[in-house]
């Protein structure tokens, strides 16, 4: 372990390649969004700024007779950030939102007429005036960085760009903002989100991709039992 850590130390002879914002591609992924479990992935090409920060509640423990902290209790973690986008006449996210809304219209109509018999008759239906960005389901934001400069890869002995990859897992939009002004030459649209985790990957060949959720568990959970088709594997 120690040897591996020493290997990763910065060396004086090493070249450092900075990452300008211009080489960061943003890709949105809506995992298993469709009824048949298909995932929607599309590059969001109008992002100007994206940020995230992480907060972990770590509670200090100080016992009597001590003047220093003897330990911590590790609490919950929160990832949050914001995205600033340039508003163009074409906007993939709004288009997606609009499409979902129209799909939703059919569903609402079906419910009202009880065609799909999914809800019992007589239940009040919510009248959805608009589907806004905060109505969107959770998604993952992929940040893919690839430098213009090539470097010799030790393993493959081939020249390849430097890559760095980050995934913000389980984003849910909390705030959205929009300003139009005669003072602005470009119009910006912002949203801020909360998320579950950020996965940073330096070596793309050395990781397993994860969509941010998993249903596998060694123990039967009470939530599993709510699915009428689920059969618990008790011994």
């Amino acid at each position, binding site marked *: 372990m120690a040897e591996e850590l020493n290997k990763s130390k910065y060396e004086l002879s090493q070249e450092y390649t900075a990452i300008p914002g211009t080489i960061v591609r943003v890709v949105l992924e809506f995992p298993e969004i469709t009824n048949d479990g298909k995932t929607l992935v599309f590059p969001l090409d109008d992002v100007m700024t994206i940020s995230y920060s992480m907060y972990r509640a770590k*509670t200090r423990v100080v016992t009597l007779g001590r003047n220093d902290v003897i330990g*911590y209790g590790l609490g919950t973690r929160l990832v949050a950030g914001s995205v600033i986008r340039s508003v163009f006449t074409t906007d993939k996210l709004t288009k997606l939102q609009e499409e979902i809304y129209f799909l939703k219209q059919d569903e609402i109509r079906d419910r009202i007429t009880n065609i799909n018999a999914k809800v019992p008759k007589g239940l009040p239906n919510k009248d959805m005036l608009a589907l806004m960005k905060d109505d969107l389901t959770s998604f993952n934001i992929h940040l893919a960085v690839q430098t213009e400069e090539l470097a010799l890869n030790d393993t493959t002995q081939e020249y390849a760009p430097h890559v760095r990859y980050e995934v913000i897992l389980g984003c849910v939009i909390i705030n959205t903002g929009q300003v139009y002004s005669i003072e602005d030459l470009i119009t910006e649209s912002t949203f801020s989100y909360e998320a579950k985790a950020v996965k940073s990957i330096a070596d793309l060949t050395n990781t397993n991709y994860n969509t941010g959720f998993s249903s596998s568990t060694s*123990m039967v959970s009470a939530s599993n*039992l709510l699915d009428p088709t689920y059969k618990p594997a*008790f*011994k």
Partner: protein
Amino acid sequence: MTNLYTQFYTAADVTVSIANRDIASREVGLDLLTGIGYRHNITAMPVYGLGNQLPEFYSQGNSLVTGTLELSFKSGIYLTRALSAIGNYPDNFAKRNELQSKDPSKMTNEEFRTLAQLTRINGIEIPTEESILQYSDPCDIIIRFDNNSDLNKNIAGYLSTITLVDVRFIEFVQGVSTAGDSVITDQYRFMAKTIVARQSNTI
């Protein structure tokens, strides 16, 4: 964190499940739990003798655990499903299996009724609509404390479990209000007979 610090427990390190007290493998994790609290009481009285101002001994009284379990509402049958699945009728399993292996055309009305009842109690095929308070057979609540990971081998706490033995749910509380944007929670009050605490020394 290095060995400079000890890692203590928080709610993030605790998982709770309910289990059949007789069949250990029948255990269901309560994944929507947001809180659990309990207290164990035993009544005892000092017994004095003449000529001594100190108690001679203490009388042995009654033991009772009382507590509350709080979970985020997801379904009205969340906990009843779990109780139904772990089933508290070990003797009835054999009876049910015996009846199920019989030729239905040769079963009596009584046997059909018994089979229906046993399937309702022990199987999860039929969703229960009964109140949790009708589940009179006790189960165990197991609280696991585990903050161990590969990154903190030397400073983590010991894997421990606290088992509330023979739990009986006695009260269900739910409130819905437009004040605030809080998540709807269910509260269940329960009694139990005693508490068993264990520590694993294997980690």
